[in-house]
């Protein structure tokens, strides 16, 4: 086939040209004119301060320690980065250092031979990170180093909770219902959800599935793509129960997750709703959405997704995921060194101090400046297991179909059975 041979020819060309110039392969700049210079392209999604400035400093430090290395940073909005990466994978033009979310997506990239195996080169770091690295391993080989691994839970406004007379965060689904009722009585919109982006809505189903299904069923589902266990339908029924309380912000079906003051995160950050279920990045997002750059500040509270009565899942299990630095197959060796540097104690401590996420290097655990994130870190480390977001774990195709149908469930246009059927149908296409 034509494209195959051309691709192969290009790959060979790239391998040969690597020492001369990286311009044609993997990176599209040509600023490394002097023979000794190496340019590493790096894409990340910290396009807000302080993260953006911190990463610039990190790159400068690395350049200072490694003369001749030039790091080209591109900071962009998360959505932009995802679509550009997708296009990049298609054309084979991906940056040297980029973010991998693990799961089915990474497996596809590995299968296509685009990600570098760093098992040996970064063995020290892998050992240090420990079990968390599992989500970025394919057939026992490691392809990326997670730098932030977080769990999803409810972020809430402690002041609004007090105002509504709520003394303790809910621990069961029934209690969550009571809290919602109390908030509504106090005239406060209880929960915001960015169902317009689908995945924030889908997280509700993921979590109820995590509570209803045993760990074995879930682990099995990720590999066999079999969703026949009745616990998956029960998960949808639990979501219907939550929807029955009508707890969500007006217009939630088109509310974006985190773009703008009227996004789900914006509503929480500006005190218009009492809580939102989101990932570990929420405080950072909220900071960018408020004029004073503080987000909810001292009023930030967090509680885990409540237990579900009669569920087979462990109530302490957490839904989560993270971001890892991966190196493209065609990248210069220095890129691997740079990724190792990104996982070093020094960089991870700075990462934690700037509250950019939940560091995976335990050396940085005590440096997490944000008390809410520090609390989250404890929850993460105490969880019996962290289930990778289903859409990531199953890959974009099955995950997308699943999220779509869950969004329909939120709109009242699909049943719990429909969610399972649509997911199964998409999964059957995969084999």
């Amino acid at each position, binding site marked *: *086939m034509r*494209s*195959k041979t051309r*691709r192969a020819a290009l790959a060979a060309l790239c391998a040969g040209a690597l020492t001369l110039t990286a311009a044609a392969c993997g990176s599209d700049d040509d600023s490394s004119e002097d023979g000794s210079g190496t340019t590493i392209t790096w894409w990340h999604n910290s396009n807000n301060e302080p993260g953006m400035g911190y990463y610039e400093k990190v790159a400068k430090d690395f350049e200072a320690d490694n003369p001749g290395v030039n790091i080209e940073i591109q900071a962009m909005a998360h959505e932009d980065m995802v*679509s550009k990466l*997708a*296009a990049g*994978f*298609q054309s*084979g033009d991906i940056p040297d250092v980029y973010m991998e979310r693990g799961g089915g997506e990474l497996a*596809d*990239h590995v*299968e*296509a*031979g*685009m990600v570098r195996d760093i098992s040996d080169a970064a063995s020290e770091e892998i050992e240090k990170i420990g079990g968390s690295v599992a989500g970025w391993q394919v057939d026992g080989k490691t392809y990326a180093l997670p730098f932030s691994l977080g769990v999803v839970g409810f972020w809430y406004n402690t002041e609004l909770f007090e105002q509504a007379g709520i003394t303790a965060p809910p621990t069961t689904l029934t209690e969550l219902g009571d809290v919602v009722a109390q908030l509504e009585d106090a005239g406060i919109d209880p929960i915001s959800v960015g*169902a*317009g*982006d*689908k995945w924030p809505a889908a997280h509700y189903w993921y979590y109820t599935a995590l509570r209803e299904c045993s760990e074995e069923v879930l682990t099995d589902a990720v590999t066999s793509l079999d969703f026949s266990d009745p616990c998956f339908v029960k998960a949808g029924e639990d979501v219907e129960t939550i929807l029955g309380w009508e707890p969500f912000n*007006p*217009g*939630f*079906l*088109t*509310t974006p997750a985190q773009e703008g003051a*009227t996004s789900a995160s914006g509503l929480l950050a500006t005190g218009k709703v009492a809580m939102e279920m989101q990932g570990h990045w929420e405080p950072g997002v909220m900071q960018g959405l408020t004029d004073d750059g503080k987000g909810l500040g001292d009023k930030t509270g967090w509680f885990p997704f409540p237990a579900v009565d009669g569920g087979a899942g462990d109530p302490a299990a957490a839904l989560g995921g993270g971001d890892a630095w991966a190196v493209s197959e065609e990248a210069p060796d220095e890129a691997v060194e740079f990724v190792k540097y990104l996982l070093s104690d020094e960089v991870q401590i700075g990462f934690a101090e700037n509250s950019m996420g939940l560091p995976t290097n335990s050396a940085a655990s005590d440096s997490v400046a944000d008390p809410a994130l520090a609390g989250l870190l404890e929850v993460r480390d105490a969880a019996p297991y962290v289930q990778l977001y289903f859409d990531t774990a199953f*890959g*974009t*195709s099955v995950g*997308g*179909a699943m999220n*779509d149908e869950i*969004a*329909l469930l939120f*709109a*009242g*246009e699909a049943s719990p059975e429909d969610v399972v059927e649509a997911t199964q149908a998409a999964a059957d*296409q995969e084999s």
Partner: protein
Amino acid sequence: MTHEGATGPVAPTLTAVVTRRDERRVAPRPVGTGWRQRLEIVMFVSPALALMAVFVLWPVISAVRMSFYRWKGFGPMDQWVGLDNYRLVLQDEVFTDAVMHNFTIVVLSILIQLPLGLGLALLLNRRIRGRGLLRTIVFVPYVVAEVIAGVVWFQLLQPQYGVIDTVLTNIGITPPEQGFLGTPELALPTVFVVLTWKYLGLAVLLFLAGLQGVPDELYEAAQLDGASWWQTQRSVAIPLIGPTIRTWAFLSIIGSLQQFDMIWVLTHGGPANRTTTMATYLVEQGTERGNYGIAGAASVLLFVIAFVTAVAYQVVVMRRDTAVQR
């Protein structure tokens, strides 16, 4: 009547192929010898053809090829599935609904934008003060980028906190609780209102251009017969710009079938897939889900549907222009 033969910018297109009626307008007298003329033609046409071949045709062929494979968007394309992707797309309710939405927009455009645009064009064709300024103002939305218009309209349409909801509440109307874009039943009509705002300027622009071609003497004659302004418009102006109207309708239909930017910025096809179009479906399947084969099949189907509609329109509606001319 001389102006009955008028056709719009697109009108001579498909009709011409069918009837070859344009030939009478062109000097049938070849200049120079055959080879010389051929050389000239090649020289004139080749830059355009080269551009089209490289940047339109080749990518489209790739999309067609893509539609026969299961492909995630990277790595070798080697999993041939035949027509499976087409079957999947046609069985997918999201796609068939999207086709429905496209045709809803087509029909609404004709039913609503045509009278509106025509009324505006007639209004702006009157000798009222500030006419030039008015014409410019009507075209403003058409010139504003979709991304920019989307950002602004999204702010305007915010549930509760947006301007539109605030104003409605102030005058005693309760806006829909989920917002205009968030209520499944209202989403498509709301999107259509924004589309009308954005694209009505083009209709007015074309109609005005058509009206400028109506000779003054005809108005004067009608006026001498004692016809009122409106009667004159109805019996003289509107029939005369019939071909322009049919041309606009053609452009509008094609545009409606390809609708993407505005909807993508406003709703991403939501809520509950109520505002999806064929184009949002294929972009969603391609870039968001990595089902490039399905996206390829959807784009081929989009093309086929657009093509069939265009031909049908030419045969049924545009033929009138030709018939009159004969």
